[in-house]
């Protein structure tokens, strides 16, 4: 067992770090304030390969792996959780459905532009009445000759405000529950696809997250990914991988917040001393760094098990469960270490604490993670 990153991963990590510090960090505060994701930044992320890391060069991707993707998620999220989720939804949800279940033609048509830097993807599964209970899908796809007609509404579709490619799920046979869900891919400009306004949120405010309604959307059967009824399996598989991204995002947000707090305690003086000289500060920082590192190792293990084509679902769920709780604890303590200043918007830890909460909710809540883990452990 070797816990060292290889040369390729080390140089990738260095490149992601430089990109995050020079390109993401300066924009993060303003994007959070305005709740608008900077499209030039998105274009830059595409250009350097940040949007296609674990995808084959054969389709224009980076030719990397999930470990490299986790490194990117951490470095970017250190400075901006919104940029993290933008990359994550595109990469491990939208792209992975087409990559894992698409035909060669579908990969050429839909995956290639998403991983070669030209198009951004989004993923529509959650509905107003179907969250953790994905089987409660009300969006329907009715077969009409060689076309499907799709009607329904998806909520919390991340990236939908600017995405070019929509991967979404709809019931093709309500009578068989989750086995009646199918996966579809379509262009933003498909008639009947209507993106609503951005939903106001507590954190990751710069990310785009809208309601998307499908009103008599007519698409050819060639835009169905996988077999009819395979949608639930496709979505769950995508979310398994997505959780590695969210775990890495959590590690990044936490490390970013702790780094800020460390910088602060080394400068701040109270009672005539730097507050970093107090043992309470030292112990707290030691404890937080230990928790972050534990989450990082769990995340890397999940990524490596996916890269090795092992059964990684439980590892990913455990990494996400642990990391998402950890990031909330760390950010709360980072704010505490910085006192009143930590609570001010002038310092990024305030934003980190708001951004942290969602990691316990999206791509499967902490409770859903426990269901996945207990299920893998065959605890019935």
């Amino acid at each position, binding site marked *: 067992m070797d816990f060292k990153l290889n040369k390729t991963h080390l*140089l990738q990590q260095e*490149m992601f770090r430089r990109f995050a510090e020079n390109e993401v960090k300066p924009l993060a505060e303003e994007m959070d304030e305005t709740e608008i994701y900077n499209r030039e930044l998105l274009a830059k992320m595409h250009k350097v390969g940040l949007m296609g890391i674990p995808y084959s060069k054969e389709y224009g991707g980076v*030719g990397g792996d999930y470990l490299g993707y986790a490194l990117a998620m951490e470095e970017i999220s250190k400075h901006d959780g919104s940029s993290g989720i933008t990359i994550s939804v595109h990469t491990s949800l939208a792209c992975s459905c087409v990559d894992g279940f698409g035909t060669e033609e579908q990969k050429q048509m839909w995956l290639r532009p998403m991983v070669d830097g030209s198009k951004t993807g989004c993923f529509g599964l959650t509905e107003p009445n179907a969250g953790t209970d994905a089987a409660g899908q009300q969006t329907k796809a009715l077969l009409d000759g060689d076309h499907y007609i799709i009607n329904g509404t998806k909520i919390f579709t991340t990236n939908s405000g600017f995405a070019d490619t929509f991967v979404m799920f709809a019931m093709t046979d309500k009578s068989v529950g989750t086995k009646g869900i199918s996966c579809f891919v379509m262009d933003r400009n498909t008639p009947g696809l209507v993106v609503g306004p951005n939903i106001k949120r507590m954190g990751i405010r710069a990310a785009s997250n809208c309601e998307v309604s499908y009103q008599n959307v007519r698409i050819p059967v060639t835009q169905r990914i996988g077999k009819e009824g395979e949608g639930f399996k496709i979505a769950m598989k995508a979310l398994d991988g997505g959780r590695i991204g969210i775990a890495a995002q959590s590690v990044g947000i936490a490390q970013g917040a702790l780094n800020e707090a460390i910088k602060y305690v080394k400068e701040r003086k109270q009672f005539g001393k730097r507050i970093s000289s107090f043992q309470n500060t030292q112990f707290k920082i030691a404890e937080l760094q230990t928790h972050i590192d534990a989450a990082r190792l769990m995340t890397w293990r999940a990524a490596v098990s996916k890269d090795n084509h092992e059964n990684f679902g439980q590892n990913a769920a455990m990494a996400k469960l642990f990391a998402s709780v950890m990031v909330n604890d760390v950010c709360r303590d980072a704010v505490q270490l910085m006192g009143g200043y930590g609570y001010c918007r002038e310092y990024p830890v305030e934003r980190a604490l708001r951004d942290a909460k969602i990691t316990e909710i999206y791509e499967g809540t902490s409770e859903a993670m426990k269901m996945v883990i207990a299920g893998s452990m065959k605890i019935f």
Partner: protein
Amino acid sequence: MKIVVCIKQVPDTNEVKLDPVTNTLIREGVPSIINHDDKSGIEAALILKEKFGGTVTVVCMGPPQADLALREALAMGCDEAYLVSAREFGGSDTWATASIISAALKKIGYDLIITGRQAIDGDTAQVGPQIAETLGIPQVSYAEEIYDIEDGNKVIVKRQFEDRYHIIEVKMPCLLTALAELATPRYMHAGGIIDAYQMEVKALGYEDLKDLLVLEHIGLKGSPTNVFKSFTKQAKGKGTLHKELSPDEAVEIIMAKLEERHII
């Protein structure tokens, strides 16, 4: 068109420590980067390649760990990389370095050579011009902008001067020394990094170049420059602030100071 960019790996700080015996830099433990001006040179070369075609070769003289600088250049999009490294080359001053790199360049071949203006660890700005002199080719130092390549063999370059600039047409093969203003370096591409580690960094050692070198003229012993003393510059003390003076009073104080110091 074969563009060759010469780069140097430098410590990522101005606060470097010196070896008290040799008075040379201690590089261990200090993160290393591609020298800023050199990186602009790489970018300029890549832009020229995209516009006019050709290849970009990157050359670095240094210890084995300079491999990382070359991988980074490959990950930015360079086509091939050479590491010029040998025990015999260690401790070379600018003159000896220029003769070694020139020997390597003769082996590699070139139409256009780009070097950085100067390295942040030595600040001599000598190696680029010395390479051009050693190779007997024209040079344009302090290149701020490359306008065009004409007829496939002439480069039109803007050269920065203190109070003016020159626009120069120069016949290839030639050498340019790049200012940071020449081009803002691109990031490595995430996939380029994977390619970079699958590509070969070609090694040029003493044995490969010895027919073009004189052993007595390279390395620490062959270097005519002897470092007499290296030391960290002491920071100047705080200046004296004179506030709320009339222009005449201010002039009087300044003139008195200048006279006191025997400047006038």
